[in-house]
């Protein structure tokens, strides 16, 4: 259509608020700010001078008033005196996209077969997160977990995602609160001191039921400590996620393959329960390289009904952790307690190695579980009926599986890179389950040292000699 034929814009002055956006949009300077107050509205509408107008309609697109600027062709039938009426009656319902009330489901897509990759733990987690549909990563550099975030920074822009190097861990966790509140799978990579700093936000996320995945590559503490592996955030992740009645599923991988698999599961769990999930690795696990097989499918995430959709149907969705009335807050906490109970009932995970007939049970997770496995094998060769009980969820502790094994167990050895936080979790779980524990020994190392296989073996064999 040539410029001379295209319809020109037409202004209903009563609907113009004089915001001047059309003036900025007009490429031919056809519109000027008005000079006279409109008596019907008390506002100053713009004035059109259409000699130069080529009917490009850019001003119509710029106009925020649905009925302010329109095309001349729409003018018919509206001549005469202006009567203030509901514009919906004159021009029909305004067009607004409207979604249904339900969740938009995840979309699962098959991946082609490929050779296993050789990846370091933090990279494996990052790739797992990408396959789970995570496109929003927030973080602050901290050894030994920065590489995961760096990989995300390289990849995410290509996948229409965002990596934000936040001003601090405090900023990162609050960005996660925002992205998670919008219903988007999001995550952060951090290590012990950074995780400490994030706990305030974690408590708020649990209170407001916002999902998010925290990858914490535990390092030596307390305070600044060092950058070698330790397992001393177990208490923090299982018992101390900020203030208030808080719990989150704590996953403990022990190989790069598990770092990837559990990262994928972490997102599913976070959204299933609307709760943060902690992926608790240790410093070596982040840096350790291993063979990693990719899953058969990847996920394009949907959008849950509770999230921020940005449309009219969902505008009542409010993400908040405040409940000022005592009764409301008690109800909310009871709701959270029911959720924690459901998690405890359904999500316990464990890897039992030669536990069926075990008399000496070794309990270990993360990297120390690898040494413990070797020690168990050697102990078996030496005639000691040893088994390895490796919790994959530390909270909830896999007590149901343990209760089944316990009748045959004469002795427990807890192996950990820390001063007894894993043993505390074990003792607490046994106590809640009313199981009287057999003698519990331990192999503990601190400061970034890991229990060596020989040390564990010596402990496994030592008491056996005394007993026999």
């Amino acid at each position, binding site marked *: 259509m040539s410029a001379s034929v295209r319809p020109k814009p037409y202004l209903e002055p009563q609907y113009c608020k004089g915001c001047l956006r059309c003036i900025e949009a007009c490429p031919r300077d056809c519109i000027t700010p008005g000079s006279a107050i409109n008596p019907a509205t008390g506002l100053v509408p713009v004035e059109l001078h259409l000699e130069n107008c080529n009917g490009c309609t850019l001003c119509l697109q710029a106009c925020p008033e649905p009925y302010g600027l329109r095309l001349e062709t729409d003018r018919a039938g509206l001549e005469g005196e202006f009567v203030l009426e509901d514009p919906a009656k004159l021009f029909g319902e305004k067009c607004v996209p409207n979604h249904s009330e339900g969740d938009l489901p995840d979309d699962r897509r098959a991946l082609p077969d490929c050779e296993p990759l050789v990846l370091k733990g933090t990279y494996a987690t990052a790739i797992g997160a990408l396959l789970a549909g995570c496109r929003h990563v927030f973080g602050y550099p901290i*050894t030994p977990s920065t590489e995961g975030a760096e990989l995300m920074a390289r990849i995410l822009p290509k996948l229409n995602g965002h990596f934000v190097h936040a*001003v601090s861990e405090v900023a990162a966790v609050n960005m996660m609160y925002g992205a998670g509140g919008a219903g988007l799978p999001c995550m952060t990579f951090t290590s012990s001191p950074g995780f400490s700093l994030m706990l305030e936000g974690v408590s708020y996320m649990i209170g407001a039921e916002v999902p998010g995945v925290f990858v914490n590559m535990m390092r030596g503490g307390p305070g600044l400590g060092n950058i070698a592996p330790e397992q001393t955030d177990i208490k923090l992740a299982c018992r101390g996620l900020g203030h208030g009645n808080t719990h989150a599923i704590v996953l403990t991988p022990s190989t790069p393959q598990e770092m990837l698999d559990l990262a994928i599961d972490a997102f599913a769990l976070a959204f299933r329960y609307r709760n943060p999930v902690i992926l608790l690795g240790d410093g070596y696990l982040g840096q350790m390289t291993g063979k990693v097989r990719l899953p058969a499918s990847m996920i394009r995430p949907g959008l849950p009904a509770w999230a921020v959709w940005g449309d009219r149907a969902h505008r009542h969705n409010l993400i908040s952790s405040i409940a000022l009335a005592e009764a409301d807050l008690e109800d909310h906490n009871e709701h959270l307690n029911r959720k924690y109970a459901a998690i405890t009932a359904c999500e316990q995970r464990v890897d039992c190695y030669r536990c069926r007939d075990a008399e000496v049970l070794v309990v270990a997770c993360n990297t120390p579980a690898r040494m413990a496995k070797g020690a168990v094998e050697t102990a078996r060769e030496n005639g000691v009926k040893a088994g390895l009980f490796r919790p994959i969820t530390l909270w909830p502790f896999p007590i149901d599986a343990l209760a089944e094994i316990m009748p045959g167990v004469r002795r427990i050895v807890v192996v950990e890179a820390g001063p007894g936080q894993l043993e505390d979790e074990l003792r607490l779980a046994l106590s809640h389950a009313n199981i009287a524990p057999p003698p519990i020994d331990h192999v503990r190392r601190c400061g970034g040292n890991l229990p060596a296989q020989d040390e564990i073996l010596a402990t496994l064999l030592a008491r056996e000699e005394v007993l026999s």
Partner: protein
Amino acid sequence: MPATDLAPAPEAPRAPLTKKALTADHPTWCPGCGDFAVLASFYKVLEKLNYPQEKIVTFAGIGCSSRFPYFVNTHGGHYIHGRALPFAAGISLGRDDLHVFVFGGDGDGFSIGGNHLVHTARKNPRLTYVIMDNSVYGLTKKQTSPTSPLGFKSKTDPWGAFDQPINPMRTLINSGATFVARSHATQVNHMVEMMLRASQHDGFSVVEILSECVEFYPGAFDNSIPRKGGSFQTIELKKHDGTPEDEERHDPTDELAAFKLALEPWPARFGVYYENKARKTKNALEQDLIATTREKTKHATDLELLSKTFARMR
């Protein structure tokens, strides 16, 4: 606790402070790091100040530059990332007789500690903050720092940084620091002069020192190193001698002029940007408050005050 209670008995005059006495651990920085020059200059500054060795505190947060306290044989501390300033302010206010020096990098000062920097400047405790700015996170091996220039390629910005970098001088003047200066790690004499002036300032004094990271951002400051073809332009300060040249010189008490200097294009100029001697320190204000309240209570003892309070609660 008043400082006098802790002061030891008068002793014989001691030998002046030397570099030998001040040297502690061997620096762990990479060969060629600009921070070595800052350390050497700091020894010189301490020699010149000649404070009693036990009255000096060297303090830092986290970062390569924050290894500083290990290398200086004074009281010291190595603290949380970004939180060195509140800790140091605590020392300064608690022990008015000590001289507190805080060292840190650009990430420590402007990213995670940015909030603390602004509020320490607002409160104006008596301490000296030296920011060794290398425009990159070196300790964690090359991520974007708040002073990295636009387009800087790092591991967290592999496509080039696009967040607006912070202008340290503008930020510091704006937040109300009472002494703001800028120097360069390749200019030892200038650095010594700036740190000396800063440590003699009564209040919160900050010196930003451009200190190159040879490992992760080599050549960052080449255009202010004359040996590498750049120009090192210093700020001429007003001498108030009435000559016509003096009109052109910078008046460090003029906040607006300092602001204009801070807005000059990179690498801008080096020297004292701003100095405010009129504002009282937090230390002095606290002492004033204590004096006023003590006067009101007619210097009552702790026990008298407590029993009075309890009597009222009965």
